[in-house]
């Protein structure tokens, strides 16, 4: 049972984008997707730091892939959401949905 923590908005966006793209994206692809989802340009540094944080929390994992001259031989990290990550997303969604439902009328 995951610890009942809530995710920040950007963390949620990152995890959702990772789930949406099926072929384990690397950071550049993820950033494009996020920019579309969020409707704004996503700062490169913010994305990397969020990914690091999510990895430390155990919600994201990555695998190293070798690359060719198009990256000057630098490796690629392909990210994926862990089962803990999925679980915490669910908790977040449920908690938020509960709250949304409770305030639904006052928002009408």
């Amino acid at each position: 049972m995951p610890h009942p923590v809530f995710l920040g908005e950007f963390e949620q966006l990152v995890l959702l984008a990772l789930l949406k793209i099926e072929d384990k994206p690397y950071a550049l692809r993820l950033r494009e997707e996020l920019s579309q989802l969020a409707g704004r340009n996503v700062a490169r540094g913010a994305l990397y730091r969020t990914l690091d944080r999510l990895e430390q929390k155990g919600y994201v994992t990555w695998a190293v892939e070798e690359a060719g001259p198009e990256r000057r031989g630098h490796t690629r990290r392909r990210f994926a959401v862990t089962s803990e990550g999925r679980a915490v997303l669910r908790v977040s969604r449920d908690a938020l949905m509960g709250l949304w439902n409770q305030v639904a009328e006052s928002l009408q």
Partner: protein
Amino acid sequence: MTSPRPPRFATWLLGRCLPGGATGDSILGDLYEEYIQRRGGVRRYLWYWRHAMALSTGYLFKAGSRSRRLTRHVEARRRFPLFGSDIRHAFRIWRKRPGYAALAVATLGLGIGAATAIVSVVDRALLRSLPYPDAHELVTVWNTFPAWRGHEVLDALWDRVHISYPEYRDWRDGQEAYQSVAIYSTGYSTLTGIGNPAVINFGTASASLFQLLGTKPIVGRTFSQDEEADGGSKVALVSYGFWVQRLGADANAVERTVTVDGESYAIVGVLPPEFRLRALTSGRMGTDVWVPAGIFGEANDRGHHIYEGIARLKPGVSLDQAAADAGPLLRGPASPDRMGVRVLSRQSEEVSSSRGPLMLLLGSAGLLMLIASANVATLFTAEATNRRHELATRGALGASRGRLVMQLLFESGSIGVLGASVGVVIAFAGVQALLGLAPPALVLPESVPVDLRVLSFAAVLGVTVGVAFGVGPALAATRGGMGPVLYRRTTTGDRSGARLQRLMVGAESALSVVLLVIAALLGRSLIATRAVDPGFRGENLVALSLPLSGPRTQPTQLIQFARELVSEVGVLPGVTAVTGANAVPFSRRGGSSSFQIEGRPVAPGEKMPEAHRRTVLPGFHETLDIPVIQGRAISEQDVENGRPVVVVSSAMAGRYWPNESPIGAGIIRDNRRWEVVGVVGDILHGDLTAEKQSTYYFSFFQQPPRRFWLLVQSSLPPGDLLPGVRGIIADVAPEVAVERVERLETLVRESTAGARYRTILVTVFGACSLLLAAVGMFGVTTRSVASRRRELGIRLALGAKRRHVTRAVMAKETRAMQVGVVVGLIVAAASVRTIATFLFGVSPWDPVAFAIAGIGLATVGLVASWVPARITSAVEPGYLLQVD
């Protein structure tokens, strides 16, 4: 195709700041992948820098940073456990006071930018070695004619006399101090047979030149020694550019021929693209066609000095030893006091013409850098003093003085780094401007990349200034007990901060005055130069240079050609006069020759008289509006078989016939007697700052020249006039190409381009320094009135007049500036002698220039001080007493 390389230094920096392993590596890869997808050039380069810097700082300042270096640093240096927090604090301060940060960064950026731009150009132009293997071994060899020293016409040439082919042959065969010696000569000639006739750069070189410079042809071979001199071969080497543009990069070029000045040469090789030998006398580069030396019949003429000498020294041989070795060989039978030899480093000779101007700019940029530093120091002091309360609070809460000083240093150091970044951007633009505006006479490299050396220079400069000028204010602000500050009492720290600020304003004013004096002197000198009367009027005159070759150089053909051209061009609509000469003033062409005056034999060993020689068509003096002082000018009656006549300039008449009229006197030249029939006004030949020198004019018909300039006077713009003139030239002589087309007015104006360039740049530096001094003065007064609000409020409340209060504030605050102005004027007076070579028509101690600089700065300083003083004294005294 190779993929582009991202900026190396930025990648290196980012690599140091990112975490290790796959995380950091993949981030580098991501950035690179985007980098290569962007479109090229400077924007892409800057894009990479911006993102690399953003990522670096992001990882560097991350709480609990994983940066390897930083982690090690923090662990190893327990004394500064809050390193990261200092930097974060610095960022917070800038966000809170963006005006202060922006001003400091902009000031520093300006200084660093100017200094970095000039240093980059100086580095490339003066310090880098020439693009040849073991370039330090290369030397230039000149003949010298000591007898020419002090001569009216020849003095400028005496220590740079060219070498003749026989001298070279003796030198080559007898020398022992050199690995190899070579000669070359460059000029321009007419190419025919490939497209329309065209004028190309044409050179002759000894076979040894290419081997000496380590040049390997990309196609074919270079010359061999037996192809030189009499009995040599009509063979040619072509440049890479010529091969591509004229021969279509034909792989079989060595089977083809080129026709230059009517002579056909078999191509034996193509030189590599990087071969760009610079001729020292003309500054010309990019010779298109080279042929072997000595094949034009000059191989046995010892007096035919046309070649520049270049040689490679043997290891360990000094310049003096090399000169001693070459001296007797080049001199031949002449005595040592008649002829000498100079051996100079090739590197220093190639840059000798640009060294002076570049050093002047370097000095000016250095002064501006110092002024910017002083200005930043006043800003740092003001900032540190303003924050004494905050610092005192932190001190009271347990921060040591060392910690507080460290924090202020981080702030000033990081301002330095940002200033350096702005400076690099300014430098980048500045270098383009420096190269773009440079006159052709100033030999500068074609491109100057802003490379790692330059970036490191800017970074070191920024951090050094930031830290060095941050230490004083930081120590001053944290000096004395912290308690009194909290009770809002003035302390010694406050006073010493103010003292430091005034000291800096004084220093800034002094430096600024020096720069302004130099700018004013150069400006007045340029005005004086422009006001010089060249002795002729060039308005509405267009000159066309027509190099002649082959049968066209035969006297009868040339005269017929000139006559036809003049009569046909003369009837073109809009043309008011047509004439011609072997050279026109300010075209940097035309030479001098020696003569003898009838009845005044020249003793053996004595130098023959020498004067500028011009060969002109009738109407030359009238068209250029050169006045006839006595007798007449060259006219239609001076035809081929007429009486040989010559017209002399006023300076020549005064020099050789000081107390008599030269009319009727005889001049002996080419074993003929030429009768002086007129005296005309003096003209300048290429330098408005030169003395007017002896010149004599022959009739074109009696002394047909090899070079021919057609001069056309017309009220039409050249664009409307030229097609008609070119059409006539093509009809009359299809093989003649037009080498240059110049407006005489433009030629005269362009002769001052070097002076204008220097003056503009130094004036820009001077204006920047004035602006910085004003900012400094404004800052000091503002700070002073802020700290004296209560006192001023009380004085106003007790009935003091506003203007008295304003005046009292200004009197105190501008004193440092006034002292600075006086010191600056003294320093300038003591040092202007060093720029005397750049001045014309003004004394280095010109009182007007000194007055402009002193009064200019003092006025700007007074206004900058008056504004805050006046604003403060205009406020209600009650408000001044309340606010704190």
